[in-house]
């Protein structure tokens, strides 16, 4: 009911852009395929020809043609590649943290074949020229397809709307002032009114800055004990309640980013029950960690916004993921340089990286112990594009090859061999994780293969 008028959508450019490259031709033999949406679950041979999945057949039945690489994948898993609707690749302006080249490499290493980039760069992505320039840059640097979000308000100042329709024509997939909330409800309302014409879901960093008041971690027993200023859970939930009401009133489409608190989940549930077009994300770190870990006062791994909350919140997030209240998992991949994190907790930048470890961390901490199923993990890592009208990748003959090959048995230590990302602020650095991405095909190209993983050529 809330879709943009078709004549507008038709004019829009392709949402995702990638560096052109050779189309993959390979035969993955005897792999365990799992694509819950397509109902694929079992051991098959999967043949990729010219970047397209040309055939999926009984295990051991396919032969490689000339020039087709063969991957012996007995005991390995193939999943549809993942899609992350929330990453910060820092271009332009903060390339010392990350850029499109390193960021997309990092994504490919995590099994991703599509990303949406946040707009809080330096300067922010606020004009059609910014979007065009970035898309142009992606054509030479992006090893996986990426789309760009534009800001809702000019330079994220929160006072004037950007040229939303022109931004959409230039290729903006959606809008967000992520990093900052839209504090003025009048601006929020105008943006949602205007969205009815130009489309583009508005992704919201929900936080009331007056309630957060300089907080650096969750407000509770741990913040009390550490003497750190706290961010109360209601700082997030009151804004979700407000924006859900405005979106409902204006028939707008909103995506709530990085959900962290049980109160927020309740607000989303209520809004969904009321018929508001509201979607939401959760990060791997909010699913896996609580504020207890902040006692170690390590900002490199454990300082981010929204903050890690309590066990009660974490369990509620898992429940909401299972019951479908939460639409997708997004990493909020937020790289920061060493010197920005090697400072006391309160002084450190907020944010952690997550692309390379999203699958493995959740697989290790939630799937292996039986808290959630592998099917659910694959579905929620793959569904990040849906709120932005980007279809999830699928393992079906005739579709473009967007898949990842993963060894669920492999154990690896995060950061031991460095990172593909330029930054090292992984929230699970030094942890031993199960499940390693061996290879990723993105839009028909081999975007990543683990260095130690060799393949044979027929």
């Amino acid at each position, binding site marked *: 009911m809330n879709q943009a008028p078709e004549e507008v959508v038709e004019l829009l450019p392709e949402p995702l852009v990638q560096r052109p490259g050779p189309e993959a031709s390979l035969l993955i033999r005897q792999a365990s395929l799992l694509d819950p949406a397509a109902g694929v679950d079992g051991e098959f041979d999967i043949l990729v020809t010219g970047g397209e999945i040309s055939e999926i057949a009984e295990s051991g039945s396919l032969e490689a043609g000339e020039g087709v690489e063969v991957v012996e994948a007995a005991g390995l898993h193939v999943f549809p590649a993942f899609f992350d609707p929330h990453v910060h690749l820092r271009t332009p302006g903060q390339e010392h943290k990350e850029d499109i080249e390193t960021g997309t490499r990092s994504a490919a290493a995590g099994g991703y074949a599509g990303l949406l980039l946040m707009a809080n760069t330096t300067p922010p992505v606020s004009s059609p020229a910014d979007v065009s320039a970035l898309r142009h840059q992606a054509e030479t640097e992006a090893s996986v397809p990426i789309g760009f979000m534009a800001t809702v308000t000019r330079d994220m100042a929160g006072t004037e709307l950007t040229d939303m329709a022109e931004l959409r024509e230039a290729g903006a997939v959606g809008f967000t002032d992520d990093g900052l909330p839209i504090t003025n409800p009048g601006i929020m309302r105008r943006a949602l009114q205007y969205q009815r014409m130009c489309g583009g879901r508005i992704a919201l960093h929900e936080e009331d800055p007056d309630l957060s008041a300089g907080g650096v971690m969750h*407000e*509770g*027993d*741990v*913040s*009390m*004990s*550490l*003497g*750190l*200023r*706290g961010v*109360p859970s209601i700082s997030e939930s009151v804004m979700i309640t407000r924006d859900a009401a405005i979106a409902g009133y204006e028939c707008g489409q909103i995506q709530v980013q990085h959900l962290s608190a049980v109160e927020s989940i309740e607000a989303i549930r209520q809004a969904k029950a009321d018929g508001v077009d509201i979607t939401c994300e959760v990060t791997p770190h909010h699913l896996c960690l609580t504020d207890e870990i902040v006692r170690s*006062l390590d900002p490199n791994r454990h300082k981010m916004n929204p903050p890690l909350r309590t066990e009660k919140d974490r369990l509620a997030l898992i429940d909401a993921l299972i019951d479908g209240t939460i639409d997708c998992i997004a990493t909020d991949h937020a790289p920061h340089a060493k*010197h920005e994190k*090697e*400072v*006391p*907790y*309160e*002084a450190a930048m907020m944010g952690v990286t997550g692309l390379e470890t999203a699958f493995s961390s959740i697989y290790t901490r939630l799937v292996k112990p039986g808290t959630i199923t592998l099917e659910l993990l694959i579905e929620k890592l793959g569904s990040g594009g849906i709120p932005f009208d980007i279809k999830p990748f699928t393992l079906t003959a005739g579709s473009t090859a967007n898949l990842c090959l993963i060894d669920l048995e492999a154990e690896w230590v995060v950061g031991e061999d460095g990172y593909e990302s330029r930054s090292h602020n992984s929230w699970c650095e030094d942890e031993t994780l199960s499940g390693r991405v061996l290879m990723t095909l993105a839009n028909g190209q081999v975007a990543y293969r683990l260095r130690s993983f060799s393949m044979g050529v027929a």
Partner: protein
Amino acid sequence: MKHLLSIDDLDREQVETLLARADSFAEVTRRDIKKVPALRGQTVVTLFYESSTRTSSSFELAAKRLSADVVSVKASGSAVDKGESLKDTVETIYAYDPAAIVIRHPYAGAAKMLTRWVDASVVNAGDGMHQHPSQALLDVFTLQNRMGSLEGKKIWIVGDVLHSRVARSNIAAFQLMGASVSVCGPPTLIPRGIESTGCDEAFAGRSREQADVVYLLRMQNERMGENFVPSIREYARLFQVNERRLGPRQLVMHPGPVNRGVEIGSDVIDSDRSLISEQVASGLAVRMAILYDLLNSGDDAAEQPADGPVPIGEPA
């Protein structure tokens, strides 16, 4: 014990050992020659990123009384003013091979970070609103000297608990020594989650009459812009401890600096129920004991005489 970062890292026995040592150093400070050679040839650096009178001077003097070489670095007037990072400053100082670094910093966890960067003993002389363990130890020492054991005693901590590292350290230290602690202040200045420490919480001072000790916190004027209390005048009317509010057998303490006429009446400061000057005096002996303990732990401890330091000029 290699570092002193938080009261939470100590057990009761460690505190008792340390304060017994402080007792013997208190005796040293009453001699004509107030110096012992315990740390001769060792270097102690004090690194202060916040203003301080009591803590910085007493750590400095404590190190000197132990015959250490002391370098005092203050953030203002040093390379910190020029934007040098904490890590770079610490690495620069570490080039002098100090045995101990005493640090005060406006951010929680700063002292702990140092332990990852250097091999020296690190003493937390205050990190943000988190901990100020040497203050808590000297407060326990002061109280024990006046009233004996803290076991079963009732201690009230009154004022701006929210922003107070002294409160956080002292709650833990007083409880460790067997006292029961209550916090009292306007609800805006009592942190959420305080009950997780096992403290009682009170907004009105009525039952303060039951307290054996009233520990006052400084009302920080710089907080006034943030609407924590409507006015200093009203705060003083509701929470100030003065002669009218202090029972005849109640003791009063304050970590300093005091705001006379705000959290505490001048009449009380100068009464015999005030331990404020004794706190300062205790600070020296306790900090000597802290430095001595940290720098003589591990293998080196075996080489030290078991019965404590030997004064200069006396046979070892």
